[in-house]
């Protein structure tokens, strides 16, 4: 996939959460804002359900992307934070993401949400397995 291919992907992923898996429950949450065609902010979170699907819900965050050059809480370079107990445990730099991904990191920030959605949908199982390993459990089965 080339950079140009991002242009064919159309609208950015819609805000909200998408189920990636049900047993255990896994959600990809995304929220992005645009200002005159430029990406203003992006938050994406990979959420893991400690509950069983259909039961009372209890979610934890295991991976986070946040991009917002104009916010003190934001960042001006795309990266991912591995999260444990609500705290950043490890950071994956843009280069590490690019080395890991099957698609390039776009040069234009407009396409960051497209990249993040594609990357996370491709790699979520590995992050879930790492989380379960850290917690000493094994619920996810391929």
């Amino acid at each position, binding site marked *: 996939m080339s950079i140009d291919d991002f242009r064919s992907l159309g609208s950015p992923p819609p*805000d*909200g*959460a998408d*189920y990636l898996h*049900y*047993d255990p429950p896994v*959600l990809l949450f995304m929220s992005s804002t645009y200002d005159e065609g430029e990406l203003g902010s992006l938050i994406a979170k990979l*959420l893991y359900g400690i509950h069983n*699907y259909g039961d009372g819900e209890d*979610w934890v965050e295991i991976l986070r992307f946040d991009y917002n050059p104009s916010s003190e809480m934001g960042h001006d370079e795309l990266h991912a934070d591995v999260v444990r107990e609500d705290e950043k445990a490890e950071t994956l730099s843009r280069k590490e993401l690019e080395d890991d991904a099957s698609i390039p990191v776009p040069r234009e920030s407009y396409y960051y949400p497209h990249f993040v959605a594609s990357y996370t949908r491709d790699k979520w199982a590995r992050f879930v397995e790492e989380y379960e390993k850290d917690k000493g459990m094994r619920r996810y089965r391929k």
Partner: protein
Amino acid sequence: MSSTGDSAEENSLEDMSYEEIRELSPNELVRISPVRHHPSKTPPEED
């Protein structure tokens, strides 16, 4: 989606700032978000 038991102000994503969304707990985030199911998978049957 069921309630998560977090403090439940009636917010929606559209009304919230980047900072507010970033700081939301995962349970609250799911509670206020549109949640979409995987088109090629059927959720497990609920008893």
